[in-house]
């Protein structure tokens, strides 16, 4: 009964959020908004669209997810294979990563910002990607770690007894076995990367142009939503909801493709 009720509440809230976004945003969502950048006076109801933010967000989220994957996958595998017999160390590392996970993204943003000031860097897509990578990596590592942790010891022993090195065990056996969990961890991180506003506020900046290089500042959807919502003009506020629809649909599409891919790879899993 309780489980049903809590489940119901969550679905209800989710439905309400989606309903609000779509009801307010759908009427103003059109081709122009999706395919053009803000023109003069956009934030006061002028012509234009949010292509700058859509592309900026995609660049940022894809860039940081890839960068984080390069860091997180080896870390998670190392934690579960090389440190197998050092359980104390393993748990200490897990504790640290959990703490990092808990730090709010705005702190990562502020941290990166102080470093940028020290070196005299300006807000740029690159700085944003690095910052977001820092704050999604704990999520990705722990997500993968949880998936790898469930792999039974017998599989590790089987791989070793066939003469596999640690490296081969990691990338040929463990990776395959944990693929669905690893894919989920990547998706989760991507969702956090594309949806976060606080960490990119200082580091990526905001611009009405589409970034043409990593050193230029870039707009992002969450900030675009924020700026449009703070406008006193109702039409601009409505456009914020249109931007929210775009953000939601991107996350939905990524999740569906990700799940399809992980399903394809999970057919070999040992249950």
């Amino acid at each position, binding site marked *: 009964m309780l489980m049903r009720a809590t489940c119901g509440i969550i679905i209800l809230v989710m439905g309400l959020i989606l309903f609000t976004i779509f009801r307010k945003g759908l009427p103003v969502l059109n081709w122009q908004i999706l395919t053009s950048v803000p023109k003069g006076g956009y934030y006061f109801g002028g012509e234009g669209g949010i292509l700058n933010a859509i592309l900026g967000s995609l660049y940022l989220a894809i860039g940081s997810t890839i960068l984080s994957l390069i860091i997180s996958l080896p870390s998670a595998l190392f934690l579960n294979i090389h440190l*197998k*017999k*050092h359980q104390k160390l393993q748990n200490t590392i897990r504790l640290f990563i959990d703490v990092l996970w808990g730090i709010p993204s705005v702190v990562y943003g502020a941290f990166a910002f102080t470093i940028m000031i020290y070196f005299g860097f300006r807000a740029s897509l690159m700085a944003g990607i690095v910052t977001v990578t820092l704050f999604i990596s704990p999520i990705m590592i722990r997500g993968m770690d949880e998936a790898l942790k469930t792999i039974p010891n017998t599989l590790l022993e*089987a791989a*070793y007894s*066939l003469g596999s*090195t640690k490296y081969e065990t990691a990338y040929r056996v463990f990776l395959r076995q944990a693929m669905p969990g690893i894919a989920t961890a990547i998706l989760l991180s991507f969702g956090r990367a594309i949806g976060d506003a606080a960490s990119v506020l200082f580091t990526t900046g905001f611009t009405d142009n589409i970034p043409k290089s990593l050193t230029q500042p870039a707009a992002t959807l969450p900030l675009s939503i924020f700026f449009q919502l703070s406008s006193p003009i109702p039409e601009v506020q409505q456009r914020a909801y249109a931007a929210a629809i775009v953000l939601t649909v991107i996350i939905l599409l990524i999740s569906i493709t990700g799940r399809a891919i992980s399903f394809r790879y999970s057919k*070999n*899993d040992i*249950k």
Partner: protein
Amino acid sequence: MQADKIVVKNLDLKIEREHILKNINCSIPEKKITVILGPSGCGKTTLLKSMNRLTDLYSKKIISGAIELNGINIYNGISDINDVRRKMGLLSQRPAPLPMSIYKNVTYGLRISGRRSKKFLKLRVEHYLKQANLWEEVKDRLNTPASSLSIGQQQRLCLARGLAVDPEIILADEPTSALDPLSSKAIEDKFVELKNHYTIILVTHALRQARRIADYIIFMYLGEIIEQGDATEFFTHPKNELTKAYLRGSFN
């Protein structure tokens, strides 16, 4: 007098404060079935795993003594443990197929040692699956996941996979305990057939199984070797009182 494949000398193993193996001294004859016999929790599995150093995976362990494989101590003085492990195929209590297709399970060991020729691999797969009596059942679905096989079939697949790396020794840790009587019989018969080419070390607590297939017996109790020797001798003229009690079945 036959040659000894493995000689264990003064092996002592503690995990945390538990003394699992106490001063183990034994030798495993070549190309025979050696059965490590004893009640649950007496250290049989640990002894087996120490032979290909899977004990490396245990945390907080203290190990001393030596295990000599073909006269070389595997705990000291070998450069690559993987070479040692490749000489031993392992069958675990529950089959542990790798998360890939039947075909790739058998070729895994060959592929990681650099054999890639498709033709060669294909021949090997057929050869070893036939050796493990699995070929007829799976020849039309080699590319299906290994997890789709029954437990008994999976265990035979693990045998084929272990044989495919061309080991000298087969380590088997109660390989039939999760299997039905027919699959168990198949594995036992296979062992008897395989002992002409391989040294087989089988851990079991099933006295009947030991009687059926053992050539040499190592009887363990609470981390110590109580008695070891030729199987017929062991079953007809046990020397130790504990052994006699165990064989009578009045044991706890």
